[in-house]
């Protein structure tokens, strides 16, 4: 789960990590009064969306599609600038390298005081799955794409792994600061901030904290100029406060509803809907559809032991997608019983009707019973014995209609 920069910074501020003064705004009036209250001549006007690359993104009018402004993060030197930039940003569509072509409508703005920057650094905290430990990465090349830094100048990227039992130790913080070339007051400031950020990471069950850039000001303070924070959703049971800061407007509506029903759903661009049990098999089903010339419309894992209702809900979500021209059901019953899936499919079709071809592959636990239920119904379906056969069939059926 991702949160906005302004929310991440408010977490930082509470934890004692240096951030600049800033105000969250949702209107031009808000932005102007924020400018007045900050008392800083130069401010940054920053689009708030759950995607990176905002600074280099482009804003478009959602109605006309016309280009409005280049850059989703702007430095304003006057009250007039603030008005112009917030007008150009709010309600418009921001397209960045991470949003895809559709972009995201910007409803939130962050107006932040300026500061005199001496140097920009990069800092990230995340879980290193290979080392099975928390990893802190820092670089002197702030403001740049970190993948590029890792590729082109790996020597500029410094890493520290935290021993889960010992925690982050003093010498590790000091050494990392010295690796970044810090000394004196700046090193002391970095030392304090890194410890606090690590605590924020652990106490909030973060999946990642990325600060790009982390800056050294001209008076040797280390300040988080950016805050990209995401949480490990598995830990949501012990973080009820996440509900209050979750911005559902940034998430796909169908994906959110699917999650509430215990389904994993990810919408994709293709036209073949799939309903599968198990994440690995669901991915493999998408792959095989593509292998035989089709494009999957979604990833959908109904989990293990789904009931009729869950199957029904899954079917509804697939059929809601107007791009779907055909459906492939692929079930390998383990805990999941195939007859339950069959009943769920029939119930859905009865309720919603079915105007696209449906290929069903049932295997494993109770597959014969499941097949019998489908065969005994009036439902026109195509059956397949293997995943490959199912994928070929649905791709063929869709091609035949075009």
């Amino acid at each position, binding site marked *: 789960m991702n949160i906005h920069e302004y929310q991440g910074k408010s977490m930082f501020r509470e934890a004692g990590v240096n951030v600049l003064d800033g105000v969250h705004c949702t209107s031009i009036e808000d932005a102007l009064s924020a400018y007045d209250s900050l008392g800083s001549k130069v401010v940054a006007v920053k689009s708030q969306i759950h995607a990176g690359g905002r600074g280099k993104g482009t804003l478009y009018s959602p109605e006309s599609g016309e280009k409005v402004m280049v850059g989703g993060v702007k430095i304003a030197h006057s009250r007039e600038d603030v008005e112009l930039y917030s007008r150009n940003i709010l309600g418009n569509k921001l397209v960045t390298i991470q949003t895809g072509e559709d972009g995201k409508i910007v409803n939130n703005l962050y107006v932040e005081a300026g500061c005199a920057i001496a140097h920009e650094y990069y800092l990230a905290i995340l879980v290193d*799955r290979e080392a099975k430990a928390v990893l802190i990465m820092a670089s002197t090349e702030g403001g740049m794409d970190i993948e590029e830094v890792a590729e082109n100048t790996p020597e500029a990227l410094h890493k520290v792994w935290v021993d*889960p039992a010992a925690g982050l130790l003093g010498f590790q913080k000091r050494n990392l600061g010295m690796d970044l070339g810090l000394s004196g007051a700046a090193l002391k400031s970095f030392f304090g901030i890194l410890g606090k950020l690590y605590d924020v990471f652990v106490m909030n069950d973060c999946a990642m904290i990325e600060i790009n850039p982390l800056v050294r000001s001209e008076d040797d303070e280390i300040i988080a100029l950016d805050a990209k924070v995401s949480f490990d959703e*598995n830990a949501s049971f012990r973080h009820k406060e996440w509900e209050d800061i979750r911005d559902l407007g940034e998430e796909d509506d169908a994906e959110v509803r699917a999650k509430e029903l215990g389904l994993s759903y990810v919408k994709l661009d293709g036209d073949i809907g799939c309903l599968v049990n198990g994440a690995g098999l669901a991915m493999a089903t998408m792959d095989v559809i593509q292998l035989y010339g089709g494009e999957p419309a979604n990833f959908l894992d109904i989990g293990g032991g789904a009931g009729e209702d869950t199957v029904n809900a899954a079917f509804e979500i697939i059929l809601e997608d107007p791009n779907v021209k055909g459906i492939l059901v692929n079930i390998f019953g383990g805990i999941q019983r195939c007859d339950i899936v069959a009943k769920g499919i029939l119930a859905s079709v009865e309720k919603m009707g079915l105007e696209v071809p449906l290929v069903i592959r049932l295997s494993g636990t109770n597959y014969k019973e499941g097949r019998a239920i489908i065969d005994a119904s009036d439902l026109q379906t195509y059956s397949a014995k293997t*995943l490959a056969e199912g994928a070929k069939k649905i791709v063929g059926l869709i091609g035949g209609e075009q």
Partner: protein
Amino acid sequence: MPIWINEHSKVLVQGITGSQGTFHATKMIEYGTDIVGGVTPGKGGLLLDMAEKSVSVYDSMFEAIQETDADASVIYVPPPFAAEAIMEAADAFDQIKGEGVVVCITEGIPTLDMVKAVAYVDQRPGIRLIGPNCPGIITPGKDGGCKIGIMPGHIHKKGRIGIVSKSGTLTYEAVAQTMSIGEGQSTCIGIGGDPVNGTGFIDCLAGFQADLQTEAIVMIGEIGGTAEEDAAAWAAENVTKPIVGFVAGATAPPGKRMGHAGAIISGGKGTAAEKFAAFKLAGIHIANDPSEIGAVLAVALKEAGLL
């Protein structure tokens, strides 16, 4: 000899009084697994009737192992308590026997809990953790066998193919594929789809390479991390038995979590294409479609003079 567990392994069920624990303990007994007891703190002394067997419940893993001399435990404890259950099992096996296999089925354990639990297990070298978020491990026997987990027992048969996979249902698919060419399995291991887990691909490949019963290996990966690449490089140097490989997630868009917490492509790393390329480089026989695993395995066995 299959790996890590055999037909006679004695198994405890942690969380046996929960609905998942009860359901799967019964299924395991029906398959032939020697379930010697269960653990639910506060419910010690209870006797459960399961599949015509009476199973004792203990308050702690320490007590349960002392009483039953168990070799392995399987965890069906809900996510908030699962990491603690892993550490309790590791501690008890380590203190009493110096070794033990701990299989964690639970899905949805916070990653930082697993970082702690894996470090705890790693300090006890005799303890093997499988999972979490996995179907478990099964060694089919001549008649029944030892199933520790949630996989459908009836699709398996004793044989010479070792299977290791990150995914549950895709493991079943691989099992069905071996059966389609008349081959059974030595041991099938689901290592789980979480970013931080216990036993990895390399541990399993090393186990299969050393195992006399295993003559060929099926390895199924998925997007995310670099475990498949590392395993392929290791296999090229250390595994002489033929390996068939598949990776799920070629069509997954970057930055999106595909069901499994670990299945995400970040920063261009962890793609299926990279993993397939690493497999190819290591001389692993590639199946582009899980429905082809059987056919590719037959070719691999023939090339190795095993068919």
